[in-house]
């Protein structure tokens, strides 16, 4: 066998990529020369092995996909336009400001830069002084209580983490951790979007016996922190940071039982 060249042609033949006029010649060669024959059977054996290693999805995946797509189609039909994103709104605003921009561009830029600088300085100063401050705790408390006042505290109801987690895709710019904690006595009820600390966040709802737990998750840079506990109006709150995420758990559940959550997540 003239080595590499012939091997390449045998591979092309087996991949169905050899031009028709050459097929006969290469087929003949593959059966005549012993080395070629060996190479060909090796490739075929490998192919057989690989085909058998093909991974198959769980039988439920097709139904789950259909369900999600139905949901998506219904949502698209309900609101023909997606909500105006801050980016698009800013672009519209800029268009409208175009004439003024031309006239006063330079002054405006200077004023804007000064404003941004002072805002940044303020934010930095605030950031230096605030941990997961009392504001966050009150936001979390308000969001939790509000969810209890409504008929339904979840927007997507499912025990299945693989239904809940993808539901957040497209609604948030991050992916929250959604774990099945049924074995540890925390039953997943579902999830919803909420608004805490000035941003949209994922809220997961777990049930422990009859106690409802809201778990809020959003990205937060910084090192891991040990769970901090608080008690407001009879509710127990725990907050911690882990794997680039800020977690807040709140419930009327007993403090020690709620305290298991940070270890499980």
């Amino acid at each position, binding site marked *: 066998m003239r080595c590499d060249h012939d091997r390449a042609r045998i591979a092309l033949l087996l991949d169905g990529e050899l031009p028709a006029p050459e097929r006969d010649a290469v087929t003949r060669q593959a059966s005549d020369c012993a080395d070629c024959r060996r190479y060909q059977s090796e490739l075929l054996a490998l192919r057989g*092995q690989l085909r058998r290693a093909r991974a198959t*999805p769980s039988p439920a995946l097709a139904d789950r996909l259909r369900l999600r797509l139905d949901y998506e189609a219904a949502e698209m039909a309900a609101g023909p336009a997606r909500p105006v994103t801050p980016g698009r709104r800013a672009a519209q605003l800029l268009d409208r400001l175009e004439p003024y921009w031309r006239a006063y561009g330079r002054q405006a830029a200077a004023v804007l830069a000064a404003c941004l600088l002072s805002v940044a300085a303020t934010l930095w100063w605030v950031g230096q002084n605030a941990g997961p401050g009392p504001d966050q705790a009150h936001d979390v408390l308000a969001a939790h209580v509000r969810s209890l006042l409504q008929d339904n505290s979840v927007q997507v109801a499912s025990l299945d983490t693989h239904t809940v987690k993808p539901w957040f895709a497209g609604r948030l710019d991050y992916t929250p951790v959604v774990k099945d904690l049924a074995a540890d006595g925390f039953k997943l009820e579902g999830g919803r979007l909420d608004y805490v600390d000035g941003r949209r966040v994922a809220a997961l709802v777990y049930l422990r016996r009859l106690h409802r737990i809201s778990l809020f998750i959003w990205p937060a840079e910084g090192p891991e922190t040990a769970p901090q506990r608080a008690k407001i109006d009879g509710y127990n709150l725990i907050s911690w940071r882990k794997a680039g995420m800020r977690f807040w758990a709140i419930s009327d559940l007993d403090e020690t039982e709620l305290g298991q959550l940070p270890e499980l997540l």
Partner: protein
Amino acid sequence: MDPGTAALRDFERQALAHMDAAYNLAFWLVRERADAEDVVQDAYLRAFRAFATVTGDDIKPWLLTIVRNVAYRWLSVRKRRTNVIPLDSVLPNADRDEAGPVFEIASDAPSAEDMLLGRADQALVHRALDRLPPAFRETIILREMEELSYRDIARITEAPIGTVMSRLARARDQLKEELTELIAKETRNAL
């Protein structure tokens, strides 16, 4: 039937036919059953939203391109969020349920007696595949498991056809080498 529902049915009819292929590619990229299913769901939603813009009869390459992109994004997020788990610690028995019978003889392998490759345990095949660099792995998976043409593979992996061919050749050589080595080790241990 309103146009929205018609579009949905049309998408489902065309896209669900390729669900196994989508899952297989996702699985071999993210190496996690649950994550692979999430990747497929995410990719199908994106595909559905963009479905109106697709032209051509065969949506498989287009769909797999989206699956691949979502899978790689998923991997980079996972890497950022968690410490990377060394592959070898999860591999050897992780997919036992999928592994075929031990020492099965490949049906389409001629002269099987001198063909060690055809008799490898599926767990070894999985391990050998895992040792491939991702670019080689995705190329050989698209060719051997999904039976796509070089042109489609080039499109999905965003590489020139020449690169696809050389990756394929190197993936095959490396797989053969790894498998032979793993089998030899296994046989030695058995003795």
